């Protein structure tokens, strides 16, 4: 419900009760976050191994004045983003194309599906030994692990979108004499765009999860590296700083992809606004 102006004088007791409830729904999340910080303060006061918010803030500031491996916090975040960027570039080209292929073409589906299912049944981190053996520990193997960890989610979404195109839209196409190329590009792909975007969102968050794991195993940049560095040197404020930045960046990525979807698919706006 979008209530533009709320005019208390005009409201009945029941409506005022409703209105107060609505305010409560907005206040509760804030209380929840405050409570979390409160718990954190309390926990850190009990044990010296658990840094307080003040410690973490101080450590964060120090990360800028005294960079780790010549990189401040933003540098490390950027390093991680670069890795998932490369991986996602591959996901969103090859992954989308592959999803469209197996979602649209039944022969391709029959042929590739078993292969793909076998691949996606193996967790990406299980590949680490083999990938390290083949490619060492440079940039490429890390990006590869991220690809392995995020490719499936986009392929599955795109495929589902492509194989569930409403028959009625295809019928519209037939009545207007579309050829099969037009059926694919003018109808099937646009109608699957929201599923494709669901894939973009899930692959982005999956990539962000996996890149940390990849970096924790032998890297010298990235937020995942910061965590393992903190662990090795018992620098818990650094671990917490990294954890918080990971959370914030993850949330920002989700917001950005959602915003991009609204921009590119304006017709889904109404559905999403609820």
């Amino acid at each position, binding site marked *: *419900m*979008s*209530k*533009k*102006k*709320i*005019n208390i004088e*005009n*409201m*009945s007791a*029941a*409506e005022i*009760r*409703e209105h107060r409830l609505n305010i409560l729904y907005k206040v509760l999340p804030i209380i929840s976050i405050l409570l979390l910080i409160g718990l954190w303060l309390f926990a850190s006061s009990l044990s010296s191994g658990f840094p307080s918010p003040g410690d973490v803030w101080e450590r964060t500031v120090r990360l800028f004045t005294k960079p780790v491996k010549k990189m401040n916090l933003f540098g490390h975040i950027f390093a991680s983003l670069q890795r998932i960027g490369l991986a996602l570039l591959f996901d969103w080209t090859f992954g989308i194309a592959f999803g469209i292929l197996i979602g649209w073409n039944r022969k391709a589906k029959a042929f590739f599906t078993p292969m793909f299912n076998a691949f996606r049944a193996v967790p990406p981190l299980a590949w680490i030994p083999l990938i390290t053996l083949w490619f060492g520990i440079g940039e490429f193997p890390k990006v590869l692990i991220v690809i392995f960890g995020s490719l499936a989610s986009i392929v599955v979404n795109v495929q589902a979108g492509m194989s569930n195109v409403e028959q009625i839209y295809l019928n519209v196409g037939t009545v207007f004499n579309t050829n099969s190329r037009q059926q694919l590009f003018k109808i099937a792909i646009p109608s699957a765009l929201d599923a494709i975007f669901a894939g973009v969102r899930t692959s982005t968050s999956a990539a962000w999860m996996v890149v940390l794991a990849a970096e924790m195993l032998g890297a010298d940049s990235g937020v995942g590296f910061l965590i393992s560095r903190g662990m090795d040197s018992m620098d818990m404020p650094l671990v917490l700083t990294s954890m918080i930045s990971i959370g914030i960046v993850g949330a920002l990525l989700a917001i950005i992809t959602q915003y991009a979807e609204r921009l590119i698919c304006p017709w889904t706006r109404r559905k999403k606004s609820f």
Partner: protein
Amino acid sequence: MSNTVNKDENKVRVEHLTKFFGDLHVLDDVSFNIKKGEFLCVVGPTGCGKTTFLNLLTRIYMPTKGELYIDNEPADPKKHNLAVVFQEPSSMPWLTVEQNLRFGMEIKHLPKHEIDKRVENIINLLGLQEFRNQYPHQLSISTAQRIIIGRAFAMQPDLLLMDEPYGQMDIKLRFYLEDEVIRLWREMGTTVVFITHNIEEAVYLAERVLILTNKPAKIKEEVKIDLPRPRDVSSPEFIEIRNHITDQIKWW
């Protein structure tokens, strides 16, 4: 309004019902009474706020001003027995026809023998014997809707609200179902508010028709209909009433 007569006879009293959504004025000071066992139809132009009106009666929304009384007490879904039939059939897909009919009464913890009696009665009135052990997905839409209507009547509600239950059905089917709902109503003595866009339907069913104006909806007119039943839709009296109501709301 001449509601001074005998207040006790009124099952439902609606007084000064008004609703704003922010600045949007949807319902403006609507007052009317419903007698016990009355069949009341509400018609109005498309988009006049009929849905808001319904949602106020079921307490999904709370009114900005005014109140709704059932048996002289402010209406309360917890205390009063309200039943609603929507345009789309809303039976539980995991229950059979008979279980669906029992559902509401079991929630209300009615004694088993009472439930048995009422279910039997409704199944007989609707002639649904052959469907009693089927699941909703095995039924046509019209049959599914009849189950819902049966379920609502079986609850013996204080007030039964029906929101265009026969919206998209063809005339033949609609006449059949309208006759059926009249039969149920007469048998059970339920107080019914029936909301519709279809004026012919309103004139066919109602003892009284409330005509709403465009937004903000007010009561434009009340039309009493005492044509004998079954009503003849092509009789001059019927057509006269139908045309009169149409003139009050026609926008197309």
